[in-house]
């Protein structure tokens, strides 16, 4: 008895990606060390990069809570400055140990997940799976299109989250915009920028809250890098999808065989 899977199931078994109205989630090859590095800089960012949003958001929320309560950022700052007694004193022992296991998990977990998703990416590509490039929903419209990577970078540099809004990666965008507002406000960054550019450096140093300020570099770098990578990979995905469409529909065996026949009288 033959048990061959019909084409319709084969195509769904190993998908390349899914276009939904709020985001396009998809597999593409990534360097697991890059994902791991973002997780180390900010637990959860590695997962958000991969499109594993629930895990990513959980870990980021966790990071905000425990880091703030245990004063991990303050301790990191004092340690790098060589003020080890202050580092020891600032840590809240009631919270600190909670940090370690989850931090290590987030690095290892996002590394391992990247390796697994890379296999999915290869399988999906080899299976030549179909995908629908447009999704129109009640609240938003998602579709594949060519977009400029450097536009995404520029927007992300102006405000983390805007670059993702441009590429229609709404969950990341929403999250980054809120995180940016919170960290900028509580760290007093904008006042410090004002003072710094006016030359009042001691005022700038004095007003900044280091505990909150130290979230910002990771947030900023992540927004810029992730929106860039996404735009590039979306463009590649667009090309793959369109190439498949063209192969399926515009390579007819009935296409003229007279293409190479020379015109009459010229032969």
């Amino acid at each position: 008895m033959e048990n061959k899977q019909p084409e319709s199931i084969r195509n769904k078994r190993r998908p390349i990606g899914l276009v939904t109205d709020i985001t396009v989630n998809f597999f593409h090859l990534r360097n697991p060390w890059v994902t791991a590095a973002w997780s180390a800089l900010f637990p959860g960012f590695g997962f958000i990069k991969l499109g594993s949003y629930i895990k990513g958001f959980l870990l980021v929320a966790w990071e905000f809570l425990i880091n703030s309560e245990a004063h991990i950022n303050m301790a990191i700052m004092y340690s790098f400055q060589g003020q080890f007694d202050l580092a020891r004193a600032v840590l809240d022992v009631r919270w600190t140990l909670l940090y370690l296991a989850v931090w290590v998990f987030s690095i290892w977990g996002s590394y391992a997940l990247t390796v697994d998703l890379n296999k999915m990416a290869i399988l999906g590509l080899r299976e030549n799976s179909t995908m629908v490039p447009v999704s129109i929903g009640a609240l938003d419209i998602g579709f594949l299109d060519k977009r400029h990577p450097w536009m995404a970078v520029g927007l992300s540099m102006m405000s983390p989250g805007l670059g993702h809004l441009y590429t229609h990666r709404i969950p990341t965008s929403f999250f980054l915009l809120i995180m940016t507002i919170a960290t900028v406000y509580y760290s007093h960054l904008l006042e410090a920028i004002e003072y710094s550019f006016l030359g009042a450096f001691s005022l700038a140093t004095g007003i900044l809250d280091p505990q909150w300020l130290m979230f910002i570099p990771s947030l900023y770098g992540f927004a810029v890098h992730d929106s860039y990578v996404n735009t590039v990979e979306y463009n590649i995905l667009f090309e793959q999808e369109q190439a498949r469409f063209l192969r399926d529909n515009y390579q007819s065996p009935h296409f003229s065989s007279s293409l190479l026949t020379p015109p009459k009288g010229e032969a």
Partner: protein
Amino acid sequence: MHVARSFEYNLHLELAISELEKKGIARDGIAAIIMDSRVEERKILDTIHRADGISSFDTAAITGTFGMLMGAIYGFVLYWGPVIWGIIGLLVGFTLGLMGDLLLTRVFKKKKEVDKKTGTAKGPSPQVFLIVECDRDQEGMVKGILWDNLALGVGTLPGNHK
């Protein structure tokens, strides 16, 4: 006769095809050739139509972020403060990461040479080649549609009269 046209992948390509079909060109009379590039040259910076997925931007973004963090940390004990030192750290980290990545790439990965005689992979090369079969009197219409939809180039092959 045949009208051939080269194109980048984008939505205009599909707009052109659908318009041709609407104007009476049969689906079987349109053929798309998907061009594979023979030589893949690694680009430092990706553009909208060319990207290799391995980007020097990866390392630079991570080292830049780390540099910004360090700049902010030491900025608290330095004269210019965390904002200015953070920006300096970002620039230094980004530059070092980019240079380091390019250096390592040059050492460990053999760069594929571009054939200078054929010029493969130099400059923008067409990614899709579309061939449309049509009558002589349709030629102007077909060419117009192709040019209007951002074709890179359009050419004709007279061939036999249909």
